[in-house]
């Protein structure tokens, strides 16, 4: 497969979100871009896998480059499909079948149990399960097998702040038209031994059954302060270099409230947070509320992996060439030591002025980043129902945030993540997906017991564990253009996308300092076609074939009117005036 053309302004290797945004920005200003990825899919650690895809991937193993000069390290490690003690994904069917069989025999077993549990526990749990959540329609191994293609698992689950950088960029570039989002509806925190809906906005505080009225006032007073205090004001500056606890105590927050605020409003993966960070975080949180719903976040339907694809499409629309399932075996440099092109696995040589490389690709002169990294453990559970089923008809359970503070449930580090409902299009129909993360190297040890505990009310259909490499929150290093190569970094371990957008923006300005970063793509109506004027009479032609009806005069006119009136918005005033006059 020969790639044409062979000369490019920018060659981008890896299709993570940062690389895709850079590619989009370059092609938008008319640069020629070649965008490559060794994988057969877009996004690398920013992608979303179907469960089938992930299982196949586990069987086949990650791709590799047969070269000493350029290599690829995969972004997911310690992948475990945990269904049986032996951990063989293939045996899971058998187990489901077995469960089904037993079900038929006993006529009471409705839940697929983890084999490691004792029979007593199983019985105990089953009783509560059958009472609490009638499984409709019950899951069978065949059904699960069929649904796997419709399950989308984020490698890096993240949310977009409703008024955040990602939303801004999507809007300002018009890239947003490729995407649809779900608003995050609920937020749960572990509070006094149970998972409760965190009061994150005024109405939730009002509705919260777990707070006393006095606590409601204290909480509202505190968050109102955080929202309204100016960052130059004395009230703010006096909290400089102070701890978060001092701040909480000064506002008379009870221990319970402190837990709630820390878990729900202070969005941070860091272990210690200063008073100033608390105020800034709450301010940011509250300012994003009410834009797309009562919570400050939205996430793309079908998973976070849609975002790099959207920017890749944007880039392609502006002429970038996309080739997947291919990688360079070597980067070449000119006599001055600067990047000059790549040699592909096919042997084809392509030239380029600049190169952008994702962190998964390394070469002797381009080692993998080592500093500021954190290993993150992931647990993904597919369940037959929500861990917090809806209690009211109007409630929506599309996306819920879960936050379990340290010390709760015996886990040493805070565990946080999401539950996705079927309408988020991440899990398949009738299915829910929990995706939790915590810093760590051994996902099963780090997370299984915690997730088992919070899912003990629902039937778990599937468990998946893996780790990924991420940048620690707050570890932001500016990109550098070295030998005409820019190396991008790992996703930051935090909620939003501002870090990678900032990285893409800075990278772009290193390449083309005087150019605008991702100006809006024109609206389709505003595009000027080569010979528009001459062909105008053809405009209504498409509708000509509609419905052959008796060609009465009236009908003819009405048909034409129908067509013409539909061609755009009515300009109200003048016409209304005409109407008024005619009455």
């Amino acid at each position, binding site marked *: 497969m020969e790639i044409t053309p062979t000369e490019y302004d920018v060659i981008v290797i890896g299709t993570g979100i940062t690389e895709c945004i850079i590619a989009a920005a370059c092609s938008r200003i008319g640069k020629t871009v070649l965008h490559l990825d060794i994988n057969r899919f877009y996004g690398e650690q920013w992608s979303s896998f179907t469960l089938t895809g992930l299982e196949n991937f586990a069987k086949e193993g990650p791709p590799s480059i047969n070269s000493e000069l350029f290599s690829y390290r995969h972004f997911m490690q310690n992948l475990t499909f945990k269904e049986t003690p032996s951990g063989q994904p293939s045996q899971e069917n058998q187990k489901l079948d077995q469960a089904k069989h037993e079900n038929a025999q006993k006529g009471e077993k409705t839940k697929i149990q983890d084999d490691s549990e004792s029979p007593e526990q199983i019985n105990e749990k089953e009783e509560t399960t059958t009472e609490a959540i009638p499984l409709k329609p019950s899951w069978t191994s065949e059904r699960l097998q069929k649904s796997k293609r419709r399950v989308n698992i984020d490698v890096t689950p993240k949310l977009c702040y409703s008024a955040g950088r990602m939303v801004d960029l999507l809007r300002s570039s018009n890239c947003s038209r490729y995407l649809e989002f779900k608003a995050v509806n609920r937020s749960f925190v572990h509070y006094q031994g149970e998972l409760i809906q965190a009061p994150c906005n005024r109405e939730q505080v009002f509705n919260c059954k777990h707070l006393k009225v006095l606590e409601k*006032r204290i909480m*509202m007073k505190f968050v109102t302060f955080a929202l309204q205090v100016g960052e130059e004001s004395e009230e703010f500056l006096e909290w400089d270099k102070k701890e978060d606890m001092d701040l909480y105590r000064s506002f008379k927050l009870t221990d319970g409230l402190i837990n709630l605020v820390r878990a729900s409003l202070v969005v941070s993966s860091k272990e210690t947070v200063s008073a100033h960070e608390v105020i800034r975080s709450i301010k940011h949180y509250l300012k994003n509320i009410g834009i797309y719903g009562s919570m400050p976040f939205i996430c793309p339907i079908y998973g976070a992996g849609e975002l790099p694809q959207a920017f890749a499409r944007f880039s392609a629309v502006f002429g970038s060439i996309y080739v997947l399932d291919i990688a360079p075996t070597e980067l070449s440099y000119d006599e001055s030591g600067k990047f000059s092109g790549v040699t592909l696995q096919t042997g084809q040589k392509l030239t380029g002025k600049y190169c952008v490389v994702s962190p998964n690709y390394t070469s002797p002169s381009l080692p993998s980043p080592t500093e500021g990294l954190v290993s993150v453990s992931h647990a993904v559970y597919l369940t037959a129902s929500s861990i917090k089923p809806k209690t009211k*008809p109007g409630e929506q359970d599309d996306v819920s945030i879960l936050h379990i503070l340290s010390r709760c449930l015996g886990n040493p580090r805070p565990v946080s993540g999401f539950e996705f409902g079927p309408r988020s299009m991440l899990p398949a129909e009738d299915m829910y997906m929990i995706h939790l993360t915590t810093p760590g190297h051994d996902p099963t040890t780090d997370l299984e017991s915690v997730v088992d505990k919070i899912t003990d009310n629902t039937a778990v259909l599937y468990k998946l564990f893996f780790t990924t490499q991420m940048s620690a929150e707050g570890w932001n290093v500016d990109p550098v253009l070295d030998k005409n190569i820019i190396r991008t970094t790992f996703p930051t371990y935090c909620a939003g996308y501002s870090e990678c957008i900032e990285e893409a923006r800075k990278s772009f300005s290193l390449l083309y300092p005087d150019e605008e970063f991702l100006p809006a793509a024109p609206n389709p109506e505003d*595009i000027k076609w*080569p010979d528009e004027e001459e062909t105008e009479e053809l405009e209504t032609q498409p509708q000509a074939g509609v419905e052959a009806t*008796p060609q009465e005069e*009236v009908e003819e006119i009405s048909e034409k009117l129908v067509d013409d*009136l539909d061609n755009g918005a009515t*300009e109200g005033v003048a016409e209304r005036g005409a*109407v008024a006059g005619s009455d």
Partner: protein
Amino acid sequence: MHGRLKVKTTAEKEAEKKKEREKKKAIYQKCMNKIRGLFMSGDRSVVLLNLITKVLENIPEFGTLWNWRRIVLLEIFRECVEEKCNEDELLAMKTTEKDNEVDKTPNKADMIISEKLFVARCLEVNPKAYSLWSHRRWLVEQDPSESVIKEELSLCNLFLKYDERNFHCWDYRRFIVTLGSIKTQSELEMSTSLIERNFSNYSAWHYRTTLLDTENMGVVRDELEWTQNAYFTDPSDQSVWLYYQWLLGREVQGDKVLAVYRDSDNSTIHVLINNLTYTPPSQLLIKRMSNTDENTDENKVQNSDDNTDENRANTVTWKSSTSPSRLWSCDISNFGGHVTITLGDSSVTLSDGATLGVDKEGISPLVKYTAPRDLVEEQLGNIRELYELEPDNKWVILTYLDMVNTCNPHKSKEQITEIRNLTVKLCHVDSMRTGFYRDLWTKLLCETAVTAWWSNTSRDVIRSRDPLNLSKKYLTKLAHSDYMFALHEVDLSHNNLTSLTGFSSLVAVEKLNLSNNKIHSLEGLEGCKNLKELDASHNQIHNACGILACTKCRLRALHLVGNPLAATSVYPACVVQSCSMLCTLDDREL
């Protein structure tokens, strides 16, 4: 390399838009002409209907066209029915396709469904067009089945979700609820869910007031607890406070006579009743017993039996100087003896020779809460707790103030001071409404003073001679003046009065001190026929017109020093001229 993208310039876009607009305008006019022509010629066909659809799609608020549409639809509906009866006509109507006649017949039910879809689509564009909602109403009336009602309710839910204060939709909902006899409980739940979504929703709170069973104290208790969550969460939200006040309720009493006063010259009787009315209550009767048969109740029974007194009573004409009024007067031609005034079940007797008769249950302009005392006390505790947390929140202060006032008809000095401090605070935290809070203070103070005065008087009628001292109270006006109708002496000096509105109720007053106010004119004193001593010194009376009202009084002593008028050349001549009975002016004998 392939063609670069060219984008239209703003000017090009403008030109294109204009062209499009012109084109559409022409089409629209043509279309409207066609519609008008067809409609006027009596056409009621589907073709006309479709034409109307196209225009309405663009201009959904075009009321006339919706009217025409209904006329056309009615005709089509009628034809639907007829066609079913008359197969021949059906065949005649068909032009070519006769294959599946049954399917092709426009079915009324289907047409209503598609019509509803059309209205819904237009509502999406303009959810506040009267004509759309009324068209929908009409459609529902065509077939108000249970399932239709259910659909309409969910439509309301949707549009109230878009805009929770869309009054068109609220109206429509009430219409549907009535039409479908929807249970109150489900409507309450709907209001609850709206409030849970956003409790700054006057409409939803108000809707509750039309649904809630306030007779059931358990319900009221739950509601009070629920609202407590709301006002603790956001004490600045007015809608919750209004609902909260509604929950506490205000007592409404049946009409009742409170007090009767006989003029010193025994020519007029003044009656104070508890409710304001625009016309004299028809049950307000005056009964007179001559001195001879005053001894027993039996006489009254006899009197009511033979009805002669009743008949005479009915001929009395009640008058009042304001409208509405609590104070009703009638002329009596010197009938002495016992006089009994009755209104419904209540009555007040004026003994022979007495000038004042008083209801024994006490008289106060203060309106109590309907909620039981213990509940109110509990609420007062909650509000006090919130007040301590939010001492600067106007709604909290206002509510607290109101509760302190209402819970204590007879106030101690400390309580009055507290009320005073709360109003001062209100003026500080909400300086835009200082005038309102001053008036509020005036009202509360007058209320308290009047209540105390009547309380003393009820115990001992002799004390009705007690003067009412309202001096140096920062009053902006005389509030509850009707309750002061029997007072003989009132001191209002050193206040902020600007006019004498309401003073006409002071029918018994003999001595009035208005010194050191900001009064421009004595207008309003006309009704004070017994006024003998008036101190109006140090006010803002500029000219002789300002004292014209005094001519109707029998003033003996008047003080006008310190008014601009007193420094003019016409003074004091103009005063002496107006007040013929005057003996002293500014302490000087005339």
